[in-house]
Structure formats: structure tokens, C-alpha cells
């Protein structure tokens, strides 16, 4: 992998983990159920290699960024990747089957930054619902 490709991937991973973290903590909790799904999503759907996911979480990368930087980064992403990030973020929101007002706000801010129409956003929500069910087949556990 060339250096520039590696840097692009690290940037994407950093943007993803920051967007995912913001959604995961927006309701004031950091439950474990949201944790591993984010990494699995990065590996499977965003197709990011293991070392890129590790690198993204180093202090020099994600540690230096704010929500504002995340919004700027998603704005500059190719459309398809932006939608994948939106879908993943909604998947995390779905994991506890409720949406806190700040979670809705974060979804709205991201959707605006990516430039999603209501139709696009609905498609992302449906994708998120499908993937969340696949990753958390845990209804029997919550019984």
C-alpha cells in the first residue's frame, strides 16, 4: 500500500471512529454493546485493514480532532463513503433501540454535512436497521 493510500485510509478510519464515538456517547452512556460493532463495521463495510483501524485511534490522529473536524471530513468524502458513515452511525444509534435528542442532532448534523436528502437519509436508516439486527442478534438476551 502506498503512503498516500495509507494516509487516505487512516483519515477515513479516523473520521469514522470519531463519528461513531460521538453517536455512541451522545446519550451520556458508553455501553459495551456499541463498542465492537464500530470496529467490525470499519473492517467489513468500510473495508479498512486492522493496522489502519489501530493507527486511527492513536492520540496524534483521533486525539487531535473535534466534532467540527469530523463534519469537515465527511463533507469532503466521496458520496458513497459518506452514506456508509451515515449508515454506520445510525447502526450505533439503533443498538440501544432508542434515540436521545443529542443523537438525533448528531445524525442531523452529519446528514447535512454529507448533503443527504431525506430519501437518502431514510435509505441509510433502513441499512442501519438491517445491519444492527445482523450484528446484535440479542433479543433473546434482552428478554
Amino acid at each position: 500500500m502506498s503512503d498516500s493510500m495509507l494516509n487516505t485510509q487512516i483519515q477515513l478510519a479516523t473520521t469514522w471512529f470519531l463519528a461513531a464515538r460521538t453517536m455512541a456517547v451522545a446519550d451520556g452512556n458508553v455501553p459495551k454493546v456499541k463498542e465492537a460493532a464500530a470496529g467490525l463495521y470499519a473492517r467489513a463495510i468500510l473495508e479498512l485493514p486492522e493496522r489502519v483501524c489501530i493507527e486511527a485511534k492513536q492520540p496524534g490522529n483521533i486525539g487531535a480532532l473535534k466534532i467540527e473536524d469530523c463534519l469537515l471530513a465527511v463533507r469532503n468524502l466521496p458520496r458513497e463513503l459518506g452514506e456508509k458513515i451515515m449508515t454506520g452511525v445510525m447502526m450505533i444509534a439503533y443498538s440501544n433501540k432508542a434515540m436521545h435528542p443529542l443523537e438525533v442532532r448528531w445524525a442531523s448534523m452529519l446528514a447535512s454535512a454529507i448533503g443527504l436528502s431525506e430519501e437518502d437519509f431514510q435509505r441509510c436508516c433502513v441499512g442501519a436497521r438491517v445491519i444492527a439486527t445482523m450484528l446484535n442478534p440479542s433479543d433473546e438476551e434482552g428478554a
Partner: protein
Amino acid sequence: MPNSNNFGFMDRYDQRVGRLAGQAERYVYTDPESCLFKLRLMVETMARTLIEMQAPHLVDSDLSTMLRSLERSQMLSRAHADQMHAIRRDGNSAVHGETTPGPTAMRRLHDAHRLSGWYCRIVKRGAKVELHAFEPPPRQSLDAKKAAEWKKGEALESTIEKQRQQTREALLLFSETEDTNAIAKSLVDELKGWDEIAIEAGEPLIDAEFVALVMAMDIEKLLEHPRFGVPSKEAHARAEAQFNAVREDLESKEKSFRMQRQELARGED
């Protein structure tokens, strides 16, 4: 039966678990597979006791389901879950007849010791459990060949542990060295600031009612929905294939670890 230096204290808290740990300890040099079998049974017994306290409806579930539930309920810390999963995985290999080098069993025995103090504190709330440092059980001195083999086994276990650690780091939302609470607070504060600005500017939220509707829909209903049905079925199939590829990659790593251990145990390295 001689008392175990490492696990003898458990008799006061859970005799059955303490007995299994002691048996595992006795087998660690002579029969590593039996050691792992006993450790797996020990972890299953611990998990069953904990699940009875936390989610009794899952008491007849398999070990993996019980551990997942304990993780979700936050009863198991990340470190304890990792140790229990390592014992479960290596115990399963032993049960299925795979040859195991002694150092693998020793690592898991050490994990079991780390778990034992925490477990006793949970089952007897308020108990002051004094956990002494783990001491490898005594054994007869090894000849040069056996000592070299043991050293190789330890080196292999260190490599496996490092690779598993990397896999875990890649999958987690927060790195193990980060202060999760401080990061969460900072993100929420920042988000609240943005929320206030948006409210002042009169920006509407994305239709929260719609989000709630999608959230509430049964997956079957969603797949049959005239508007989303076809794309959601496609999304399902595509995502499933992608997740399966990652799972296969993770499984192939574990398979490679098992093969390396078997080669070492058979002296083929």
C-alpha cells in the same frame, strides 16, 4: 488431595470452582489438554453462577452466549472477558482433541488465577479477597531439549497474545489506553454547544419520528416493506457477505494459531 497454592483460597467462596482450578493446576505439565478442559469447565461454572445473578433466563445457554450477555450488562470488564474467552477458545480446542503445548495451558492457568480473585469478590459481596501473585506450580527440572521446547512454546504464546491484542485494538471504539469518560464528556459538551447554536438558528432536526419508526419496525416487516423491501434485502445480503469475510479472516488467524501450537506440541517446528 494437596491444597493449591494459587487457588486454595477459593474454597471459602466457591468450592466447585476452586476444585476445578486446583485440578487444572495439577495437570498443567503432565496433561495440558486436561488442564484446559478443567479450566473451560471452571469458566463455564463461573459464568453460570454470574448469569444466575444477572440474567437467569440464560442459565441454560452455551458459554459464548452467557459471556456475551455478561459483557453487555457490564458485569465483565474487557480484560476479564478477554481472559474468559481465551480459556473458552483454547478449552474448546482441547476438547476437540487438538494437541496443546504446556506453555499454552500455563498461560490460561495464569488467566484463571487473574479471574479467580475478581470472581470471589463478586460471589461474596464485600469479601476481602487477598490474591497472591501467581506462582507456576513446582515441577521436576527439564532436560535441555524439553527446556528449549518450553521456551519456544512461551515465545509462540507471546506472539499469539500480541496478535490477538492488535485484533482487539482494531475492533474497539476506544483504544485501551484512552480515558473513555473524559473523551465522552468532551464530545457531549461539544455536541451540546452545536445543538444550542442549531436551536438558536431555528434548524429543524432530521425527522425524529421517522427515525423512531424505522427503529421500531420488525426486521421481517422492513424486508417486506414495498418501499424498502428490495434494497434492504440487497443490503442484508451484501453486508452479510462482508461481515462473513471479516469473520472468516479472524477465524483463519485463530486456526493458524492452533496449527502452530499443534506443530510445536508434535515437535515439528
